[in-house]
């Protein structure tokens, strides 16, 4: 294992970056991660991550491609379980309860930690069914009108209701890309989670749809804790309160977004946000 660590450290940037710069703790954390490592088979993809996710705030994970930010994100709702050979070690807890143990049931966890994916992935079913599926499998609605209320409410909060209220029976896959992504957000919030994970939710969208999603993220912050992975530094700057910069599987720097973007502490962070690599 020592040889492996040496080899990962001998990457183009010969800098010492084992420990994270900035304040990785939060006063009122919802999720606490300590010494999180992720391995894909032999590959040590994410190394020794320590970070807190604060309540009702948006934290952006930025960094160049392949830096492990999406991999880390998927630790938070155990989606890495679905990847064969993927191993996650370390302590991750949500509201003081450990979520990374083998004896943790992922079904209630994923009901609490929703996820929006990079590519809009509505179910090939009607718009109504897309949103109603989560509440239905979790038994959140006691009767059909209750369910209809949840669907309408979720679509309203996702800012999609006015556009689709007359065609709820039509397939969700028939919507435009931006609408599909908002449908996926509505589907996620229909389960009423505590945390929403977003994995580059705007990377497949045009600027107008992106602006809508960003506005939506800002509104949702009052109700949910949001962790967003993004390639766009402008987006991180616009929507997040805190920013974490990943590089080659290491968490380089965490801090208040304004501080990270205006006064980065680490040289790599500065080089990345000024566009010298990425």
């Amino acid at each position, binding site marked *: 294992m020592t040889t492996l660590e040496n080899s990962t450290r001998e990457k183009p940037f010969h800098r010492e970056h084992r420990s994270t710069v900035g304040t990785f703790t939060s006063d009122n954390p919802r999720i606490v991660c300590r010494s999180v490592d992720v391995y894909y088979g032999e590959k040590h993809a994410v190394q020794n991550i320590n970070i807190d996710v604060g309540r009702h705030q948006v934290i952006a994970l930025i960094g160049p491609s392949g830096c492990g930010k999406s991999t880390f994100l998927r630790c938070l*709702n155990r*989606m890495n379980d679905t990847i*064969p050979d993927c191993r996650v070690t370390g302590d991750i807890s949500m509201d003081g309860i450990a979520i990374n143990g083998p004896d943790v049931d992922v*079904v209630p966890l*994923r*009901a609490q930690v929703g996820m929006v994916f990079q590519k809009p992935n509505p179910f090939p079913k009607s718009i109504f069914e897309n949103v109603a*599926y989560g509440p239905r499998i979790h038994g959140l609605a006691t009767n059909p009108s209750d369910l209809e209320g949840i669907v309408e409410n979720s679509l309203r909060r996702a800012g999609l209701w006015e556009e689709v209220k007359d065609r709820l029976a039509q397939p969700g896959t028939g919507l435009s890309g931006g609408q599909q992504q908002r449908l*996926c957000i509505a589907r996620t919030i229909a389960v009423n989670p505590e945390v929403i994970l977003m994995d580059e939710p705007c990377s497949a969208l045009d600027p107008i749809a992106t602006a809508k999603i960003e506005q939506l993220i800002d509104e949702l912050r009052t109700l949910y804790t949001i962790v967003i992975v993004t390639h766009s530094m402008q987006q991180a700057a616009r929507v997040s309160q805190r920013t974490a910069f990943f590089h080659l599987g290491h968490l380089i720097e965490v801090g208040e977004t304004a501080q990270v973007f205006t006064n980065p502490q680490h040289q790599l962070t500065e080089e990345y946000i000024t566009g010298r690599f990425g």
Partner: protein
Amino acid sequence: MSDQNPRGHTLDIVMAGLSKRRNAEKRFRFFGLASIVVGLVFLLVLFISIIGNGYSAFTYSNVALDITFDPAVIDPEGQRNPAALAAADYDTLWKASLLKLFPQVTERQEKRALNAFMGFSADKRLKDMVAEDPTLIGTTKTVWLPVDDTVDLLFKGKLGNEEELNERNQHYQHWIKTLKDQDRIHSSFNREFFTNGDSREPEAAGIWGAVVGSAFTLLITIGLSLPIGIAAAIYLEEFAPRNRWTDLIEVNINNLAAVPSIVFGLLGLAVFINFFGLPRSSPLVGGLVLTLMTLPVIIIAGRSALKSVPPSVREAALGIGASPVQMVFDHVLPLALPGILTGAIIGTARALGESAPLLMIGMVAFIVDIPKTFTSAATVLPVQIYLWADSPERAFNERTSAAIMVLLAFLILMNGFAVYLRRRYERRW
């Protein structure tokens, strides 16, 4: 290395190679078209030969005879006793009637030919008429009776070359001509071909026994292989851990799909009949054997259909907290179902056309009765075709082709159903 404008340079190279590329394209298109044409020609030849051979089996020739229901022959005791009526020799009636039509027949050879002119079921037909209505006795009535199968072939013009036209057949041809002139012979729909079981007499041989046997066998096959195959595919693809054991199972399923079907017949003989003592020649055992044969096909088709469901759908379901079972049954299975069903139907269609493994478990026996249960002795359509193709009587020739037509009709129906299912349930995402 070159001081030319690199863009112009690229264009020159592209243009130089362009005709070669276009020619390769044309060649490929020609080969594709040619192979399709060759395939269609073979298909056409197959259909023409089968239909040309077999269509005549759907009709059969009958002759109108003025039958005198002579009480001296049918009921010499005058008791109208049903047992006595059933035991009487009705052949005498049509023989007398024919002799009246052809009074010139006096020679012994000729007479013997005339006595074989009518078919084997003419006797039964007359017997049934009398049993139904005993008042017929003593009257004379014109009755349409089936001819002998050789006469039928001669009338249809199916026998023509010299060796087939022996002395007796020449007599037949002569009489047929006379009957035709008197408008006493014609061909009508051969209902018995569709309602009878097998028989040694071509005129009484039908496919219904084989159709029922095939249906029973296929019911067992579908009833077992569909649920087991789909469940196995789902388990292996979605739930089984990836390890050495599942790899081994996968390799073996793929191998089983390539095992010659007769080997499954041997297995069925050893296991189901010799070990478990299930009845021989029965649709039950046939269905079990075909299930074993079809299972690998269904499992492989099912797994590839499940594999082709995009991972984004699985992630979406898992991401909102669906359990793996909910993910599979709510989202993955509905999307994979058309592919699974298509594979299953094509697998069962193969089972319907299979004969080799069924020979091993005794479904090749000569069975006259139409099977009533899953355990009664039966045969199936492809084996019936094999049996008839093996029979020496000329008239079985056209029946073989006709049975092939019926089997092909069933197969086309099943494949059409598979296409319909695919169209109906296929969804885009």
